[in-house]
């Protein structure tokens, strides 16, 4: 599923741009709707090309997301006057500007950065879905056939999950850009997966690694005077490398210990 996440993160671009053009504002709600619509369209198009046109799956994914992304970039250049987005923003995100875009109450009281509120609500939604839908997500992810046999609606959970992916992508889009969302979607989870075999532990570990990547990325970026999003992806890669090395040794250690123990017994 990892590459489908990648595909969605690219293909939501035209949705965001069209929502922008229609609503004429940077408001998050129309953007979310536009992106979610195109996100669903992406999965449908991939399925259509794969099942109906019998194109192999990797090619269906590749053809779909590059096409939609190209449409997005073309729309941005066509309506460059109306759209307050540019190609670089799509790629790097504008996390550095997040503190400048504040949310005010009607009486003019500042509530802090807008993006913080949006990402915060997203976090609550995701945690809520995971807590309440744990069983469904768990069963569907591990053994869809078994889940079906138990009477769990795998289709429902599949689409719930895909909507969460689209939602996360869109919310993160403004801050970290299209491609680097993928780094944060995949790397922490992959690293956690190497360390543990339990889903609950994996979820906790992945969030910790994700947070560490963000903080580390911020400092790396200020040291190197470069893109914050790029630095976050870099740090998440480094953390993955550490986890990988650790997992190799952790596998090697118990073996050694058991060998020594067996020697002792003799």
């Amino acid at each position, binding site marked *: 599923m990892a*590459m489908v996440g990648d595909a969605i993160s690219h293909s939501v671009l035209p949705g965001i741009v069209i929502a922008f053009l229609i609503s004429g504002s940077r408001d998050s709600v129309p953007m979310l709707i536009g992106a979610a619509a195109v996100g669903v369209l992406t999965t449908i198009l991939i399925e259509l090309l794969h099942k109906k046109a019998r*194109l192999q799956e990797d090619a269906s994914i*590749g053809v779909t997301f590059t096409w939609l992304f190209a449409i997005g970039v073309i729309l941005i250049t066509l309506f460059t006057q109306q759209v307050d987005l540019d190609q670089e923003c799509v790629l790097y995100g504008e996390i550095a500007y997040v503190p400048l875009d504040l949310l005010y109450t009607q009486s003019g009281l500042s509530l802090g950065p807008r993006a913080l509120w949006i990402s915060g609500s997203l976090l609550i939604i995701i945690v809520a879905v995971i807590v309440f839908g744990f069983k469904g997500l768990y069963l569907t992810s591990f053994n869809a056939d078994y889940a079906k046999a138990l009477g769990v609606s795998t289709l429902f959970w599949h689409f719930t999950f895909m909507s969460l992916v689209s939602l996360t992508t869109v919310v993160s889009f403004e801050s970290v850009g299209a491609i680097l969302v993928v*780094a944060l979607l995949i*790397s922490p989870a992959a690293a956690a997966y190497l360390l543990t075999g339990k889903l609950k532990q994996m979820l906790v570990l992945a969030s910790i690694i994700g947070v560490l990547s963000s903080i580390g990325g911020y400092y*790396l970026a200020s040291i190197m*005077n470069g893109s914050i999003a790029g630095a976050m992806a870099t740090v998440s890669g480094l953390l*993955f490398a550490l986890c990988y090395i650790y997992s190799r040794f952790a596998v090697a250690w118990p073996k050694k210990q058991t060998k020594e123990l067996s020697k002792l017994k003799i």
Partner: protein
Amino acid sequence: MDSLWEFLSFSDPNVRTVTFGTIFLGMSASMVGSFAFLRKRSLIGDAIAHAILPGIAISFMLFQSKNPFILMGGALVSGWIAILLIEHLTKATKLKPDTTIGLVLSVFFGIGILLLTTIQHSGSGNQAGLDEFLFGKAAAMTQNDLIAYSVVAVLLLIVVTVFYKEFKILCFNPDYAETIGLPVKSLRFILSTITVLAIAIGIQSVGVVLMAALLITPSATARSWTESLLVMIIIAGSAGAFSGLVGSYISYTSPNMPTGPWIVMCLSLMAMISLFFAPKRGVLARIRQQRKNREKIVSENLLKAFYHLLENSIDKELSFTKDELNVKRRFPENEFKIALKTLKKNYFIISKGLKLALTSKGFEEAQRVGRLHRLWEMYLTERMHLKADHIHPNAETIEHIITPEIEELLLRELDYPSQDPHSSPIPYKE
């Protein structure tokens, strides 16, 4: 229209450079992409395209030059590291291939972006144009670039031509390639290297993000038109070249338009048209074929119903009502309609008041279906030694597929039998 002629006359040397450059790049990437496509490794191409970025940034930082060969060297190295990492991680950990591809892709790209922005902010003055690798800007191509890219493109063509046969075997059946003693490892290395090279030069025209399209989409287009690898490569190459032409024309008429997205747009439209409307392999053609097959099957079944009734009718009645036809086998309402329509169109049956009757042509056809069914049952018991109560369902499906040639073979093989295993007579033409 004027701008089109002006563009096609290539009077402007700059336009000439850019256009020929994009055509070369599109063509070579598409041709090499065919192999990646057939090996089901198209998304690895996407990963390599992203992973090339840090290589370009690092070689620029080291040499402070935008010489295409130097940048390409860096690109080649980091592309190769990405391939090796993906392969190693997939083999050494429990991570699935798509995860490792996504991981390497996004992390390398992140490193690339970090380095590029660092270069930009350091403001060494010479860095302008490096970010054009992201979306491709063919317009920035110089005469020097064109020479470099053409050299690589020609090199790729030579390698593909020389190793055509070996690559073909490697793509379709790697195990077989190994068995007949081909140096599979070295061939894979060469194929990966030319893929990285094609990507490294291709990103100049479409950019890192959309490079995957230049590898995959032309192959997807070409695949729906042909079954032959050579033809496929030629179609893919032409599609890549044509979209390069279209892309650079659009960039020419409106200079702020990025070339890459338009090339991809053109390619994708061609792919969609091909995937849906290509004869034989297109979606529409397949739907039409399916409908035809269904018509054939239900109408042959109805003919068989006629045949059974004729066989068992005592008073040699020749026409039957719909209810009578439905006795032995229930035809759903819509199937009955389809069968009736098809059979009437071919003058196999005619209406006689409320009853339906076979024409002599229809009788022959009904006899043929009955004969095939019983011949096949005979074959299954005689040659496959199946029990008589196991053979009917199989014969039900195969009777619609047997061609006159196979029928002839069956007849000879079984020596023109007169009865089937259920002791029903096997009908022959008089």
